[in-house]
C-alpha cells in the first residue's frame, strides 16, 4: 500500500511536470510564430507584368521558421513573411504550424493534468485509509 501510494504521488508530480513542460513549449513556440505566406515566385518579367512577387500557394498562416533559407526579402501586402514554396519543396522543408503546436500541446496538457489530478487524489485517498485503519494488535 505504501509503495502504491508513493507511486501515485510520483505519477502525480511527473504528470504535473509534463503539463508544465507542454504549456511552456506551446507558449515559447507561439511567441516564435510569424504569419507567413507561401508563394511560387515570379521571374523578373512576370513580376513586372503582374506587379506581384509570386502566385500565392494556400492562405497565410502562423508558423515557426526554423530554417530561413526559403524566406524571401520582400514582404506581403499585410507585412507577412513570404516563403519560396519551390525551395521548401526542393529542400524537403515542412514548416511547423502553430496550429499543430496548439493542438498537440493542448492534448498533452489536458491528459497530463487529468492524470496528475487523478493520481494525486488516489494517493490522498490511500493515505487517509492508512491513517484511519485500526492499529495492528500486538
Amino acid at each position, binding site marked *: 500500500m505504501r509503495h502504491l501510494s508513493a507511486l501515485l504521488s510520483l505519477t502525480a508530480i511527473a504528470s504535473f511536470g509534463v503539463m508544465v513542460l507542454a504549456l511552456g513549449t506551446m507558449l515559447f513556440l507561439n511567441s516564435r510564430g510569424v504569419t507567413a505566406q*507561401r508563394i*511560387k515566385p515570379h*521571374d523578373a*518579367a*512576370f513580376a*513586372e*507584368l*503582374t506587379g506581384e512577387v509570386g*502566385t*500565392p*500557394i*494556400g*492562405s497565410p*498562416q502562423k508558423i515557426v521558421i526554423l530554417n530561413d533559407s526559403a524566406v524571401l526579402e520582400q514582404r506581403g501586402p499585410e507585412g507577412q513573411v513570404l516563403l519560396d*514554396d519551390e525551395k*521548401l*519543396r526542393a529542400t524537403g522543408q*515542412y514548416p511547423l*504550424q502553430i*496550429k*499543430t503546436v496548439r*493542438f498537440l500541446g493542448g492534448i498533452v496538457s489536458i491528459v497530463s493534468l487529468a492524470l496528475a489530478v487523478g493520481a494525486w487524489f488516489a494517493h490522498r485517498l490511500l493515505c487517509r485509509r492508512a491513517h484511519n485503519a485500526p492499529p495492528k494488535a500486538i
Partner: protein
Amino acid sequence: MKPTQLIAIAAVAAVSTVAMAQTKTFKVGEAGGMKVSQTFTVESKADFENFVGQTHKVSGSLKFDPTAKTASGKIVVDVASIDTGIPMRNEHMRSDMWMNAEKFPTATFETTSVKHKTGDTYSVKGKLTVHGVTREINTEANIKYIKESEATRKAMFMGDVARLTCNFKVNLKDYGIMIPEMAGGKVAPIMDMRLDVFAYTG
C-alpha cells in the same frame, strides 16, 4: 437630314458596333516553349494542420470580350498531378478511398452564366465535376485583360493575356468523397480551391 446621310450614319454605327464587340478566345495551358503560368490549389484547414495540394497541369479555354465584359469558358484540372508535399499523402489522395484519380483523372468546371459585377469582378455560375459528380456552383471570378505589349512578350506570352483568378469551396461529401475516420481532424470536410491562370490568345 437627307436619307443618304442617315444611311451613312447607320452604316458607321453598325461597323463600330461590330468592331467593339470582339470576343477573343484565350487558351489555358502550356504551349510549346512557354513557361508554366497556371496554378490550381486545394487547401485543407483542419484542426491538426493546414495543407495545400497544388498542380500546374491546368488546361482549357476562355472566351472573353474585354469591351462588352462577357465571358464563358471551361477549365480542366489534372487530379492525379496534385502534389501535397508528402508522397504518402499524395498516394492516399489519389487512391480509390479519396479522389480515385485512376477512374476520375480530371476535375472540370464549365461556365453556364458569367455576369460582370464591377471592375474586373464577375459573378460566375457553372457546372463543377469532381469525382464523377457534377453540381452547379456560384462563385466570383476576377478576369484581368492585358493587351499584347512589350511586357507580355517579355513574360513570354503570345498575343493578348487574360488573367483569371477564382476562389471557391468544395464540400467533399457533396462529391461522394468520404473522409475515413482515421483522417478525422487531419483533413477538412470543406476544401478551399483556388484557380490562378494566365490565358493567352496565342
